[in-house]
């Protein structure tokens, strides 16, 4: 009988203990990558080399409060062939979906955002503002969402495929039309390097591609799995952004 790992992926704090410091460092590369690639996770002005190794697909994190600073990857879910019993056609429709769940730190809100529908960070922030309409955005260089009640500032962050929490704005924004792009992990890296930094508006790369048969390409489509509006006090531990070239919409 074929076996399958079916445990749910809950990235709870208890799983973090037992990992040494090196493993919990934020890295863009897979866990086994060298330290020298850490430097590359800074802003695009140095040219971001996202030479991500293909990795077992990370299941979505739970929708509870995000983990700040924990770099430990979510449990990879072994995929059983033909399970769940969903027709290929339907699977492909869901795969090409560029929707991302967005939650506000400390609240039960959970909404979905279609990254494809926004041309850049400004628009994304506007959309987020509309969704979480109790917040307003302050218009100054380090734009953040503010809770008018208690003045707490919120910054948009996201969890990348390694399970690291990143500030939105670190990686170039580029939306590809699905008819042109045949994405895979290597392609992702080279696209980013080819981008002229003057063209860039913001820092998230989004990729959505046509259906591919391997799970690895699926990683790319789900690069931005979950976003969260994190309290800026908690976001302090995250990798700092370089201000040059980044639009103020974070």
């Amino acid at each position, binding site marked *: *009988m*074929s076996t*399958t790992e*079916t445990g*749910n*992926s*809950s990235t709870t704090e208890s799983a973090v203990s037992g990992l040494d410091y090196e493993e919990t460092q934020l890295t863009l590369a897979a866990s086994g990558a060298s330290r020298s690639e850490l430097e590359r996770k800074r802003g695009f002005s140095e040219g971001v080399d996202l030479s991500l190794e293909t990795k077992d*697909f990370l*299941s*979505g994190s*739970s*929708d509870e409060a995000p983990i700040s600073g924990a770099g430990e990857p979510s449990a990879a*879910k072994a*995929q*059983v*062939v*033909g*399970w*769940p*019993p*969903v*027709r*290929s*056609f*339907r*699977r492909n*429709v*869901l*795969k090409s*979906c560029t*929707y991302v769940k967005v939650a506000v730190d400390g609240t039960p809100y*959970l*909404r*979905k955002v*279609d990254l494809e*529908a926004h041309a850049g960070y400004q628009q994304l922030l506007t959309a987020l503002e509309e969704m979480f309409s109790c917040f307003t955005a302050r218009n100054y260089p380090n734009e953040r969402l503010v809770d008018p009640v208690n003045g707490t500032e919120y910054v948009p962050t996201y969890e990348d495929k390694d399970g690291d929490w990143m500030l939105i704005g670190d990686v170039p924004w580029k939306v590809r039309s699905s008819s042109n792009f045949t994405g895979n992990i290597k392609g992702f890296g080279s696209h980013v390097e080819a981008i002229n930094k003057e063209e860039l508006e913001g820092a998230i790369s989004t990729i959505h591609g046509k259906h591919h048969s391997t799970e690895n390409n*699926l990683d790319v489509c*789900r690069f931005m*799995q979950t976003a969260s509006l994190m309290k800026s006090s908690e976001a302090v531990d995250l990798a700092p952004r370089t201000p040059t070239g980044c639009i103020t919409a974070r």
Partner: protein
Amino acid sequence: MTYFPEEVVEHIFDFLGSHRDRNAVSTVCKAWYHVERFSRRNVFVGNCYAIRPERVMARFPGMKSLSVKGKPHFADYNLVPYDWGGFALPWINAAVRRCPGLEDLRLKRMVVTDDDLDLLARSFPNFRSLVLVSCEGFSTDGLAAIATYCRGLRELDLQENEVEDHGRQWLSCFHESCTSLVSLNFACLKGEVNAGVLERLVARCPNLRSLKLNRAVSVESLNEIVARAPYLVDLGTGSFAVDHHTDAYQRLMNSFSKCKSLSSLSGFWEASPHCLDAVYPVCINLTVLNMSYAPAIQADDLIKLISLCFKLQKLWVLDCIGDKGLAVVASTCKELQELRVFPSDIYGAGATSVTEEGLVAISSGCPKLNSLLYFCYQMTNAALITVAKNCPHFTRFRLCILDPWKPDPVTNQPLDEGFGAIVRSCKNLRRLSLSGLLTDQVFLYIGLYAKCLEMLSIAFAGDSDKGMVYILKGCKNLRKLEIRDCPFGDIALLNDVAKYETMRSLWMSSCDVTLGGCKALAAKMPRLNVEIINESEGSDKLEENISDLHKAEKMYVYRTVAGPRNDAPDFVWTL
């Protein structure tokens, strides 16, 4: 009745709707066989390899409408290799030679090429309707041939096919004089179509009642179309990506409010929250709603929409509707007969989905429910027992708990009792799919109670051969049995070999049947094709030295009067 003239007998047979009834009367006596075969117009072939096409057409020379199915059902879930078979060509060829009056063709899970479609299009002057479901092997070039040569085409219905996109000209191939379309469904196509051509086609087909657009059709185009076809009954909206602040949105809402006949809606491929308001005017008349391809629609929007749909009979949604949403369905949709809840997050552990609560709510609110497909992360015996009590009319009950072997989370018990309650209560159950942690006990119940059961799908269940034996012994009307990842072996397989001739097919994959067991079955039953699909590398031929103890990874057994098929690829061994 043998004293009646044939015309009278034939007239009486006209009242027999189903294939089964006609099959039954044709076995009564030679006279009736004779009358029946000449008067049959609709022919259904459930397994394209069970009989040769020529023999079908020889028996039914008056055939006008043909429906054929190819690959086994588990091909839908990628368990059957691409070039396994199920080719449409032999059927089209035979019809060309013997049934030139063919009007309707329906193919499911078959391989259809552009050449096949071209031959079809040119060969049948009265051709009216082509329905392709889960087929592959063709491109938009084949569709262009159909559009070009089938003058008088009424229906082109493409459901969930894999179609290669060779450009957007196929729609232009419908001649200006083609005004006969009643139903056009190209929702599964990936490529663009020329908006102007589409709008003109719709405008000149006054009988168009069903139109399903693909994702590439914009909202602007949809607006033009709806404005020109206010008599549509069934609409697939295409993209539906629209900003609800714009004029385009207002126009769309106006157009929808004029559609008094619209009763079925689907599509919404790129719909975003808030833009569903445009369809509120038609909700009151909706009997069918399919939102299962709209992942961005949140539960709140679904709830607002569904709470207006009092007449809904069929609902397909994603599990982001949540238990709360299902409670709204239960309180609003009292006419509901069919519900399908699909998983929206197959690749992760979705937190927002449905549980047993949603299902219980539906069962208590919707007394007419008879067909269910439900994907969830957990289910309890108590819930299933309640559902069984509330809904004794189920004919189709398919439950998929996404984690294999998952027990009742409250009691940690297998779900035997829950499913047992379902089969005991639902005396008309024809189709059942099981999931979760299950022992042989559930199969004992099914064998005991599910007397009408025709199709059973089992995965990751059972303890021993006894389970399968209970099924084969008890389910008298079983036609299709498909099993994956269960501990059933040769003893179960060979327990009652004659049984398989009363069934259409048996599929077993990742079970414990061995090559030797399959060979024994094949030897005993010459009118069964016992096929092994062997996907391991380097073994293209049935090697003499592969031990009979070797497990048969994938086995497909079906009754046939056509003998072993001659189009099997190398990796399929017919024993």
